[in-house]
């Protein structure tokens, strides 16, 4: 009896702090956001008026927000695709690409792995500021200097509305690749060596080794990567807010859902409307999560 009491007390004591913190700082704000989305709240003291779904109706006509949604959607497809392709390629080269003593990585593979990972340990804001300089529109820009020397006029990496989005995507891929190289390498390391040996002895070249052995065995890891990168694509904020002109410009060509929420809340004082945008973003994210869970129920390869 006493033991049961002690056990209950223990459970209670151990859960009290985390659950309280979580309820206060995470769950309660989320729940309240749903209510605020139904009001016209613009500040702290004016009493928010309940306006039903007006914010959501308004939102449907908000061209900038839908532009932001298409950018998130484009990132959702392109960021995982590019990152995974590049990372898989390098992970393969680093781990099974070597000729010589058995199957292994090329010489210096640990060096490459360390260097590729560098961008991952830097804060996104730091990178955003750094790339602002890299992308400068004249010959003081790291990229434009050689381009102009070659006679290819300066490219407005951040100032041309047709280019800016690709610059954002480029920086995101640039940062993400290293992490996924290491992730896939870890996945490859858990595949028994003799599977590669066997394939090699059967005369498999590097290409068939990749497509017939590596990729199927790594499929689980690739799916994990896809989900992570997908969430990254939906959640992107700092790189756009800090790096691009006019916080998502020029001409809203790089804006994303998160920047529009922030802009409406903390620059236009439209807390109600911004919360409605947040609710829409919430459903997009949940939708993506459910979808990826469904799609990832693919047969596992047993070995």
């Amino acid at each position, binding site marked *: 009896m006493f033991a049961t009491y002690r056990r209950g007390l223990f459970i209670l004591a151990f859960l009290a*702090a985390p659950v309280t913190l979580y309820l206060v700082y995470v769950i309660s704000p989320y729940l309240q956001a749903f209510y605020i989305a139904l009001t016209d709240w613009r500040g702290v003291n004016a009493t928010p008026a309940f306006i039903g779904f*007006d914010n959501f109706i308004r939102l449907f006509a908000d061209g900038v927000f839908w532009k932001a949604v298409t950018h998130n959607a484009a990132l959702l497809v392109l960021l995982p695709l590019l990152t995974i392709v590049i990372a898989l390629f390098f992970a393969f080269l680093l781990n099974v690409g070597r000729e010589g003593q058995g199957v292994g990585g090329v010489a210096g593979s640990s060096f490459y792995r360390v260097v590729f990972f560098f961008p991952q340990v830097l804060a996104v804001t730091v990178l955003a500021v750094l790339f602002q300089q890299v992308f400068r529109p*004249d010959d003081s820009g790291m990229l434009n200097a050689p381009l102009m020397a070659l006679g290819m006029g300066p490219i407005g990496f*951040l*100032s*041309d509305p047709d280019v800016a989005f690709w610059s954002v995507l480029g920086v995101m891929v640039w940062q993400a690749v290293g992490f996924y190289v290491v992730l896939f390498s870890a996945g490859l390391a858990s595949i028994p060596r003799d599977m590669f040996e066997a394939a090699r002895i059967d005369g498999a070249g590097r290409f068939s080794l990749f497509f017939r052995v590596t990729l199927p065995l790594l499929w689980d890891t690739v799916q994990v990567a896809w989900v992570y990168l997908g969430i990254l694509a939906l959640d992107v904020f700092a790189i756009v807010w800090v790096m691009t*002109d*006019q916080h998502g410009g020029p*001409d809203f060509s790089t804006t994303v859902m998160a920047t529009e929420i922030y802009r409406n809340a903390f620059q236009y004082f439209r807390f109600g409307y911004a919360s409605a945008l947040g609710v829409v973003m919430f459903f997009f994210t949940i939708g993506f999560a459910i979808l990826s869970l469904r799609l990832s129920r693919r047969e596992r390869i047993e070995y």
Partner: protein
Amino acid sequence: MENTPQITRRGLLRAAALAPMAGALAACATPQAQAPTSSAAPAATSAANPFGVDAKKPLEVWIFDGGFGDAYATDIHQPLFKTKYPDVAIKHSATKEITKVLQPRFAGGNPPDVIDNSGANALDMGALAQDGQLQDLGPLLDAPSWDDPNVKVRDTLDPAVVDFGTLDGTFLSVGYVNYIHGIWYSQKAFRDNGWAVPKTWDEFLALCETIKKSGKMAPFTYAGKHPQYLYEPLLTMAAKIGGNEILVDIDNLEDGAWTAEPVLRSAEAWAEVGAKYMMEGTAGLDHVQTQTAQNKYQVAMLPSGSWLENEQKTTTPDDFEYGMFPIPDVTASDKLPYGTLHTRPGETFIVPSRGANPQGGVEYLRAMLSKKAAGDFSELVRTVSVVKGAGEGRDLTPGARSATEALAAAGANTVHFRWRSWYAQLHDEAVAATGRLMSGGATAKEFVDRLQKKADELKADSSIKKYRR
């Protein structure tokens, strides 16, 4: 070591008991009616202390640290204030991004007491006013001036200050500087190359052509990263062609205000400059980069305001000699004559109504508006203040002289617009559309249609408060 788990457990239990209580108190986000704190009540008022400033209560001041820096506040205004209130501790801060730093303080109900609400990231005045966040400064206008108890503050100021500071019938903000907009150039460069200030748009285009052909520098640039630097001359030109009501209509969100012929005509004119005479890379450069390029004689002209000379003081060559000229005549039948200028009281000071010490805030403004403070200010930051006669007998730099002369020549022909501070969304849209227009991504027609559409949207949006002038 024996006791460690014991202590941990007791601590945990205590936390378990206390945390939910604290959480329940705070977890509710939506506003709780905040009673005005008793500390905000004024002390007794008198002629010398018209707002009832508490001589001991601290004062928090935030200055926009832009073209004028913030030394004028710490070296001129605050010492002057201290002469009368030596026991008031002034907490001074400065930032480039007023909104980012201070918006949450407003939302949090603990704003500072005086704010210089300026710069590209200034707070949305419309939203602040709608939310009742701003102290009514009407009593300041009717209070005795700092210098002379027989003269009201109102009578020491340029009348535009009152017009501009009034929102919905209440005087809420004090513009401290007379911003004079125009096209800026180097008098030395023009003299050396034999270029003349253009009086008509045709002359302006011909000058651009001459400069371009000379190969010495690019004819024109603007802060491409912040296209509001260009929609300013664009709208001034529209007003010059079509009269002041063009800008009044835009401010009032009238139907067809943006699609009016003069706006279209002006947009076409500037789009041509954008297509033919722009310095390479303009679209990606900010105001400082373009202004520095001008200081290096890489570009001849750019649109800016009377703060420019001070902003560039570290990079300007000694013999550069800033000058400015007004928007040239576009047609033979422009509604407003040559010399028409866009002027506005800028460097907008506000006193939050829910700060800890609003009385002290208003008193700080009264001190700022004294003749000595304003005169020292204009001399220090090379500009024109709104306090009448404050610049008398002071040394003016070439740019400030040029702007002062242009202002005198303009006489009553000055125009302004206010939608930028009323409707932040329209401003963002205009910034985006102007960038497009100037880089050839949109035609003049598309430009005006796009802004008309946005203005119509705002007009139809019942959640956004409307203002009229």
